């Protein structure tokens, strides 16, 4: 009996090891987008200092966890941000990621997507992985550029805006959503995939997960250690300010009987809109 069990276990391990996947998920801490934000003198104002894990990145972490639970492997996360952003690494570890890497930068360092991609690429060159996942964009800037720029810098195959992921041999089968159909893209590994939040419903960490996350390792890697030159990371683009979307002119309202209304409308379409 014991021998049988032993064989089954070995088979199971062998099966798993054939598909073992090491994911690294690039995550970002963003302001809680549910808190009210206003614009004053060209600057964003918010009463809340609550920071959260970018929802698209949360979907990427979830998908990586689901795939490793199915096929074996591990999920690590990497985050660029100020000291406070380490809380967000803890959240990912509490969800089930195994180790975290924190690349400290000053709060409000002002990097653009190219800067983030350069830092991540430098870090990832020192790290081994099978696949890199990240959110398709971050909820604060909505640029949606870092994933693609990262793939380019690493010279890796890339697919954006995934709504589903499956492991197929030594590649990831990426499901992309169009208006009326889905597109299946095979991304050979190692590769980069950016994830949509339509992909899954990220798990809520349990108290056990939160407790376990305390024992997991978070390694700090400074940009200097990665051999990065601050000047080279200087953003090429600059956000010059914020302003409210101009209010739309209110529409005109007419009250009359049907015949009169039709006449007015035709007149306006001819003379004002000039479409007929």
């Amino acid at each position, binding site marked *: 009996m014991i021998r049988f069990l032993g064989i089954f276990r070995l088979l199971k391990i062998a099966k798993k090891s054939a598909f073992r996947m090491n994911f690294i998920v690039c995550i970002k801490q963003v302001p809680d987008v549910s808190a009210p934000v206003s614009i004053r003198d060209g600057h964003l104002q918010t009463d809340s200092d609550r920071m*959260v894990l970018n929802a698209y990145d949360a979907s990427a972490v979830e998908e990586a966890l689901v795939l490793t639970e199915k096929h074996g492997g591990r999920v690590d996360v990497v985050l660029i941000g100020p000291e406070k952003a380490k*809380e967000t690494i*803890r*959240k990912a570890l*509490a969800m089930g990621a195994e180790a975290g890497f924190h690349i400290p930068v000053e709060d409000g360092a002002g990097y653009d997507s190219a800067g983030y991609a350069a830092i991540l690429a430098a870090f990832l060159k020192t790290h081994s992985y099978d696949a890199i996942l990240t959110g398709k964009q971050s909820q604060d800037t909505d640029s949606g550029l870092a994933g693609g720029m990262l793939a380019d810098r690493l010279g890796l195959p890339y697919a954006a805006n995934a709504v589903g992921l499956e492991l197929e041999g030594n590649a990831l089968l990426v499901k992309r959503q169009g208006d009326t159909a889905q597109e299946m893209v095979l991304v050979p590994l190692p590769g980069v995939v950016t994830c949509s939040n339509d992909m899954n*419903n990220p798990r*809520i*960490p*349990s*108290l*056990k997960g*939160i*407790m376990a996350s*305390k024992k997991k390792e978070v390694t700090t890697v400074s940009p200097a250690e990665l051999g990065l030159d601050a000047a080279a990371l200087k953003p090429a683009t600059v956000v010059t300010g914020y302003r409210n979307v101009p209010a739309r002119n209110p529409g005109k309202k007419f009250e009359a009987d049907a015949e009169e209304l039709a006449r007015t409308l035709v007149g306006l379409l001819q003379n004002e809109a000039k479409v007929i």
Partner: protein
Amino acid sequence: MFLSPDHELIRETARDFALQRVAPGVRERDEAEAFPHDLIPELADMGFLGIYHPTEYGGAGYDTLAFCLVIEEIARWDASLALTIASHTSLGSGHIALAGTHEQKERWLTPLAQGKVLAGWGLTEAGSGSDASGMKTTAVRDGAGWVLNGSKMFITQGSVGGVFVILAVTDRSKGAKGVTAFVVEAGTPGFSHGPKFHKLGMNSSDTRELRFEDVRIPDANRLGDLGMGFVDTMKVLDGGRIGIAALGVGLIRGALEESVSYAKQRSQFGSPIGDFQAIRFKMSDMDMWMEAGRALTHRAAQLKDAGRPHTREASIAKLYTSEHATKAALEAIQIHGGYGYTKEYHPERFLRDAKLLEIGEGTSEVQRMVIGKKLMG
């Protein structure tokens, strides 16, 4: 006070869980007076049914402060479910954690803290509550074991619980020092529960009468020393009241958040009603009650976690938050106007649920007695 990053993460986790899993269907559960059996395994997976019990006994190994955060987040949406969690954790399981031997904790606390079984706790009777001298339920020595007779009233988890801690008179001549606690498992011959009580609120929490007719249990089911049942009960209630206080904070927050959101979208006389001072002042008061109530509750929790006396602080927190939860719910109904009087909106349920907090685990009057006794010695 500020929460540690650990506690912040617990709060965020509980908030997400409450929003995604508890809020949907809360009005339907209230209307149907339906116990949420399907949510219990989810709560167990989250670790919410043994938050501050030691990991050694299946708990999550956190503290009373973490417990308060979770209770507040759940009560924000569903006070009935928060009451289930609070009473299970602090009363039934809490009494075993306080007075049980290692063997008793392994046997009963572990499945309770893991959330595999729910706990009930029986102190109140038809003719007695906070006054132990009126207790009628007896436990009489019978060879190596005990025989219980009597009944208990308004017992939370009465029909859904698997393990019950029951207070019974073991020596009438000794008054409060003649009361002992026993563990009675569901299914023990002679142990039964009455029909469901139809209540004003807390409708999806299960409340029953428990009956004991020659219920035989071994001495291994005796919890704590002979005659110490009521002394331990006072300590259990100190912890229980912190849970009720957290429940009150959650209800005040619910009343406030629903009011703010309604006051932004409801327009009268050409502007949102939230622009009117009459409405703003009400909401400012509710905000103040929430902050004050939370500060009192967290302070009591931290004293308990530090192993320091907290009877007075727990009573003050419970008294303040429960009375203000009722007030806040009334204000929320007023702000919602005619809609607030309907069951389509949350505030009327908040009011019905909040009233229980002024009654359960010692009425407001009993809290004032407890606080007054501490003042006068």
